[in-house]
């Protein structure tokens, strides 16, 4: 214990003027983040301990109810349904986004396929489209009677599917993966190209098989960017409910009611701001804990 204090003290005395100058570089970013991210977060957390409503009598005088919102959550059937829907959505999306990202990054970094710039342009097209358009163009595709997808299926002689209703979760995941594979693809491709050729050549000289090269060179080296990317993706998926909102608004009998959508419904449709903030806090906690777990697993 004393040694720890000693080491901290000694490192403090070693602070030079230059270091302070450097540390001041953090200030603009920290100020922005503090004001526009941290403060609203804390404020919203505070809401979750009240019974505040967006409208009505409870808007004028909300009162602190301590943990009551969370107790209600524990007994809320829809909440638990929402939790399972969210896990289903986030996990499968994560897998899909990474798989697609990996496949496409392999195409982009391989030697044998030509036309890389065209490929890259096509692969990145969904990423470049502005967010407002993404749900709209897919709705036109997935409509049961007149949508492009079912029309194509009919031309091929296959039965039309009920994308918006029976396969709602699948459709939402498909759209999300379509929109979101670009980031893992870029990270993976960058990571793959940054591994020096020499490692592989040396390993090959030493008689290592392709599989050995993959597991002992490629995987360990790209582990960290991969995990960080996974954390970012998970956080994105757990927060964003645009696709389920546009497609099914919670789906047949809450099958696609993601936690983020549930929080929105509670806060802005039922006007129960306190309860909605409590759900938001749960989402944040889940994302946080899972993020830490992923890092631990990768032995960061």
């Amino acid at each position, binding site marked *: 214990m004393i040694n720890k204090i000693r080491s901290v003290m000694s490192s403090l005395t070693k602070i030079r003027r230059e270091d302070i100058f450097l540390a001041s570089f953090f200030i603009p970013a920290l100020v922005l983040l503090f004001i526009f991210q941290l403060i609203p977060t804390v404020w919203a957390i505070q809401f979750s301990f009240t019974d505040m409503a967006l*409208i*009505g*009598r409870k*808007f004028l005088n909300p009162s602190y109810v301590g943990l009551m919102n969370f107790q209600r959550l524990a007994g809320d059937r829809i909440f638990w349904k929402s939790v399972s829907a969210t896990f289903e959505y986030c996990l499968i999306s994560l897998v899909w986004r990474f798989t697609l990202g990996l496949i496409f990054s392999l195409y982009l970094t391989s030697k044998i396929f030509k036309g890389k710039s065209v490929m890259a342009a096509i692969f990145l097209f969904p990423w470049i489209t502005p967010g407002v358009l993404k749900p709209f163009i897919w709705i036109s595709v997935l*409509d049961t*009677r007149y949508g492009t997808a079912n029309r194509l299926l009919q031309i091929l002689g296959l039965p039309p599917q*009920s994308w918006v*209703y029976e396969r709602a979760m699948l459709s939402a995941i498909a759209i999300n993966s379509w929109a979101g594979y670009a980031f893992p693809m870029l990270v993976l491709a960058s990571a793959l190209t940054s591994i020096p050729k020499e490692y592989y050549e040396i390993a090959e000289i030493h008689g290592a098989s392709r599989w050995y090269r993959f597991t002992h060179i490629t995987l360990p080296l790209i582990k960290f960017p991969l995990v960080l990317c996974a954390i970012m993706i998970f956080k994105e998926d757990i927060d964003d409910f645009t696709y389920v909102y546009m497609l099914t608004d919670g789906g047949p*009998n809450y099958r696609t009611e993601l936690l983020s959508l549930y929080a929105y419904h509670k806060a*802005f449709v039922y006007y129960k701001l306190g309860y909605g903030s409590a759900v938001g806090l749960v989402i944040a906690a889940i994302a946080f804990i899972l993020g830490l777990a992923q890092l631990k697993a990768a032995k960061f």
Partner: protein
Amino acid sequence: MTTLEKALLVLSIILAIGWGSTIYYYTAIYRPKPTIITITLETKAGLWADFIREMKVIPKFEDKMWNERGILVRVRMITAPHKGYADKVIADFAAGVAGDVVWMKSDPLPDMVESGWLLDLTPYVQKWDKWNQFYPSMQELGSYKEKVYAIWVETAPQVVYYRKDLFEAAGLPVPWQPKSWDDIIDAALAIKEKLPDVDVPLYAINPTLAAIGAGEKMYDPEDGKFIVKSEELLDAFKFFYDASIRYGVTPPAVKLEKWDTRKLFQDGELAILVDGVWCWSEKWGPGMPYEIENREEVVGYAHFPGSGKPGAPQYASYTGGYGYMINAKTEHPDLAWELLKDLVAPEIAAEWNYPTSHLACRKDAVIGKYAEDEFLKWATTTLEYSSLLPRVEGFSTWKKIFDDVVKDYLLTQGTSPEDCMNIFAEKVKEELGADRVKALPPYSL
């Protein structure tokens, strides 16, 4: 980096700084000398805001204030996109930045009054000679607890549309006016038998409308409780059950998969549709997305009947409205009221309601083309029996749960009407509290 990229980078940084500082200065720092009174008008972006500009309401108002009263007024328009407009207005009020005069729908009025957001207009209205031009139901729609808070411009009840061509092909009488729900189901069954190509003979899944048609009161003002179980409510559930599950004249997929009912009606795949009066112009009118040629010959319209059981109303409809309210925190209530009066003027209302096929809320707005339109003349008669939905806090939750139960249980799982009603009662009790719900005999909670 290539020179091009460097140059672009430098250029964009310079532009960003220059642009940014100029705009920041003009919007955040620069304040004109406060000799002019500014009031803000909040409305929907696009069609609505453009209409106000076309009608030149604001310039005429500003001139009038200067000439008649020597007051220099500037009216600023705030807009929000049509999708989620009501939520935005509520968020604005909650944050305290809503406009002085606000265009809004009627549904959240009770809740907004309870939040203390709206100005009490009763003193103004009592001194207004035009107030009795407004239909009594409209006056009541804008009131809450005996005080007036909103003046409406448009209202739009629900009616039954049917395809005359399909009816004639199926041997059904035209013109058609059903007297009970059995009439509707019979007509739909006839269509289903004789014209099997028509995918959707009937679409009438409007839970609130059915509740009214059954004679359901929904809320008892005497003890302040919502009714969640009753004979009438069961009738409403049964109507949907019959239509969707028992006779199969309304495939559940229509609602669940959000088929475009207007397009289906346009294509002749839907024979009987319950929808708002505005569809006449805005969906099937000339030049509109779902245009139907020879609309007068092809599209028939009728009143939505009550269930047909004793005690149920003859016809049923409900209507909300869209109109203007005044912010309780406004600094210039008198000026806001003057602007509001201009915005709801008869000529403006008639000019707005005619092309959009809404109904006017005041008798003296029945002028010009609006007065001559056959459909609008007929539609106005619906106002005679049209009811108002209960104007109490929590009703919007009751309504939403009703919609959800029909969608998630009856249509999705084919749950029986009795079970649906029990589920509905449970959910409302959970959301609103056991002390705010009750059941009518012979049912109990």
